[in-house]
């Protein structure tokens, strides 16, 4: 066991680091990188585009892609090393991740050679932004229960319906989309996958106002939107097969909950007093922080074990599936702790106080426990795919989609 890179890994890390040091600014304690997309926050879009282009020009944009699309064919462990190093620098985030992380792999696997040539380089360069259009008002945990319809019309498809929870739809150029082409088939068999120009007539994007008051997501309405059959990815009826890869990517990508963690709770407790006593001298606080620390450390070391497997060239185990369950619930608890720590004034949201990040955590965590797979769905996945427990009998099994009970 050791925490050091192999010589090759160390060499690669040094290369990443060298380029980053020239082209970006190291994070400091005071740096607050702009993490969240805000509607119309043009400066973030511009900054992100600029950074993406810089990386692309130097070959760092999508290092695991083949050379012809702008990559360097990097190994999984090299991807991680790059990500680790990049994350130490203050660079814009939140614009390209979904497109590159989800649309990228699908296009790479299902698009024609001409389409790859046309779409992948601008995607990597940051010229064109992509979004993902899966969830619907009646299809959340049960994504395959989606109802948006595509009807074939010669060389085209006419799409009607509504998508929700689409990050970045309002500034995206393209989207990947799964819709139902035949409600007379079984649920998973009647789906087909496309990519679509987000500027197409009939597409309307509306922001969703969240519990927090902010709007990071959108509803996207499709009214007789025309999509050429050439933009179909996979065969007619293969939509679920194409989508499932993307969803697994999403569940991995959501990963760790951003925000306060055991360290921040510890810092607050050392700094803050309550009832005349330093919070850190309160055993109940000490016990909670100890437990959060163990969870955070457990997640970190689980990632290192996954990396170790990648480093050896092995396929990592399913351990990663636990990250979001643990971190989102921990975030909610720590948020609560921070607010309770300032007692009668714990509801006051002062941008300059130590407490605001705990309040944001408490609000955000309520959404994180749902986004990208609810606690309940993720536990089902662990139980069924990792532990091999039997699935429940499906109420929708063998039924045509239109005959599945929907309560409406």
């Amino acid at each position, binding site marked *: 066991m050791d925490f050091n890179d192999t010589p090759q890994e160390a060499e690669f890390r040094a290369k990443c680091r060298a380029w980053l040091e020239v082209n970006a600014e190291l994070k400091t304690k005071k740096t607050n990188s702009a993490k969240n997309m805000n509607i119309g926050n043009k400066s973030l879009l511009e900054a992100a585009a600029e950074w993406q282009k810089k990386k692309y020009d130097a070959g760092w944009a999508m290092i695991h892609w083949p050379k012809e699309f702008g990559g360097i064919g990097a190994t999984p462990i090299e991807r991680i090393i790059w990500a680790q190093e990049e994350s130490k620098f203050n660079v814009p985030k939140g614009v390209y991740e979904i497109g590159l992380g989800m649309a990228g792999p699908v296009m790479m696997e299902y698009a024609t050679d001409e389409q790859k040539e046309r779409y992948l380089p601008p995607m990597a360069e940051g010229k064109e932004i992509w979004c993902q259009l899966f969830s619907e008002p009646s299809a959340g*945990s049960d994504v395959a229960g989606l109802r948006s319809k595509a009807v074939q019309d010669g060389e085209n498809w006419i799409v009607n319906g509504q998508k929700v929870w689409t990050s970045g739809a309002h500034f995206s150029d393209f989207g990947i989309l799964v819709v139902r082409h035949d409600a007379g088939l079984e649920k998973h068999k009647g789906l087909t996958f496309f990519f679509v120009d987000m500027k197409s007539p009939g597409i309307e994007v509306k922001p969703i106002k*969240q519990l927090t008051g902010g709007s990071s997501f959108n509803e996207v309405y499709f009214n007789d939107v025309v999509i050429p059959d050439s933009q179909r990815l996979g065969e007619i009826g293969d939509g679920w097969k194409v989508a499932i890869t993307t969803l697994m990517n999403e569940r991995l990508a959501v990963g760790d909950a951003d925000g306060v963690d055991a360290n921040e709770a510890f810092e607050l407790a050392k700094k803050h007093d309550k009832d005349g006593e330093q919070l850190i001298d309160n055993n109940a606080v000490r016990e909670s922080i100890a437990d959060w620390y163990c969870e955070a450390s457990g997640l970190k070391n689980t990632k290192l074990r996954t990396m170790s497997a990648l480093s050896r060239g092995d396929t990592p185990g399913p351990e990663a599936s636990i990250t979001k369950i643990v971190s989102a619930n921990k975030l909610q608890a720590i948020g609560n702790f921070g607010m309770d720590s300032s007692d009668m*004034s714990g509801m*006051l949201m002062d941008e300059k106080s130590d407490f605001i990040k705990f309040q944001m955590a408490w609000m955000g965590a*309520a959404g994180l426990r*749902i986004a990208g797979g609810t606690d*309940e769905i993720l536990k089902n996945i662990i139980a069924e795919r990792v532990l091999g427990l039997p699935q429940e009998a499906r*109420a929708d099994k063998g039924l045509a989609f239109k005959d599945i009970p929907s309560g409406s």
Partner: protein
Amino acid sequence: MNLDFSDDQKLLQEEAKKFLTKEDALKINRAVMDSDKTYDQELWNKIVGLGWTGIRIPEEYQGLGLSHLELCVIAEELGRQVAPVPFSSSVYLFTETLIEFGSEEQKNSILPKLVTGDVIGTLAIAETNSAPSKDNISVALKDGKLSGTKIAVPDAEVATHAVVVAKNGDNVSLCVVDLNSDDVDITVQRNIDESRGYYSVSFNGANAEIIGDEESGWSNLEKIMDHAAVLFSFEQIGGAQASLDMANKYAKERYAFGRPIGSFQSMKHKLADMYVALTLAKSNSFYGAWALSSNAAELPTAAATARVSATKAFQLCSQENIQTHGGNGFTWEYDCHMFYKRSKVLSLNLGSLPSWREKLIKSLEQANIKL
């Protein structure tokens, strides 16, 4: 043996529920959240018109002369519908202080106006982001003049008067201040619940009149906090019940995988856990109501017990109501967030959950009470 409300009290509760449902208090609350307002004037006027602000005020001061029990059932209904009115500040905190500790003159001059709505009150305690204690009060009363700044004062903008916890020489005293005085500056403070208003209130030599024994300010405050803990706990169980009801309805109506999500065992057990927490809290709140209305020696213990379990129940129910609603639960459009935010504000308004657990244990140490 009767740990339950009387038929008359239940009738009053039923009427309160009908009234608030007809007014659609939840929708009014949403409108307040979407505006710059922190309460709804019209709903408040109607509540005053119904006499609710005078429930506990004796008839000689033009009140209804009823007991705390009537206040409890009203509190539960206000909590159920997240009503955006300064009721808790004015009635549970300010009016209770006046009734318990006011001089005859103070009662004469203020209580009738609380009934008519000409006076709205609040209570100003916190000054820092630590839990208030005898030792960290620095707002000072000297020669009848008050100076210093309170924070997180609820409803200070709509309130005409406040009871202020002040340093008075070596003592901590309670005093009443007219908030409309020129010597008082009130500034809104952003808070997590857009339908509630919290303010910093600065006193620049404002006139203040001591209420109650000037040496017993802190212990009088503690008594008022015990009263308020029971009343708040009814607002909290009302909110918890509403959250559970919402989750229950949604779990029956929302389908996934071809069946109502409420038929999935994890949802059933989630809702059962909410029901268990709520039932324990409700029973403890009933016990608190008994202790409050009978002025029992157990009040400090009963109040803290009601408070701790009601805080836990409302936080759990409102949080897991969001989770039950999935993505919809995280939107502004669905009502879930109103309960989530209100649950936290109600829990902090009287001091945090850890603070009340501590009060509970202290009361057990002092009283040597056994289950």
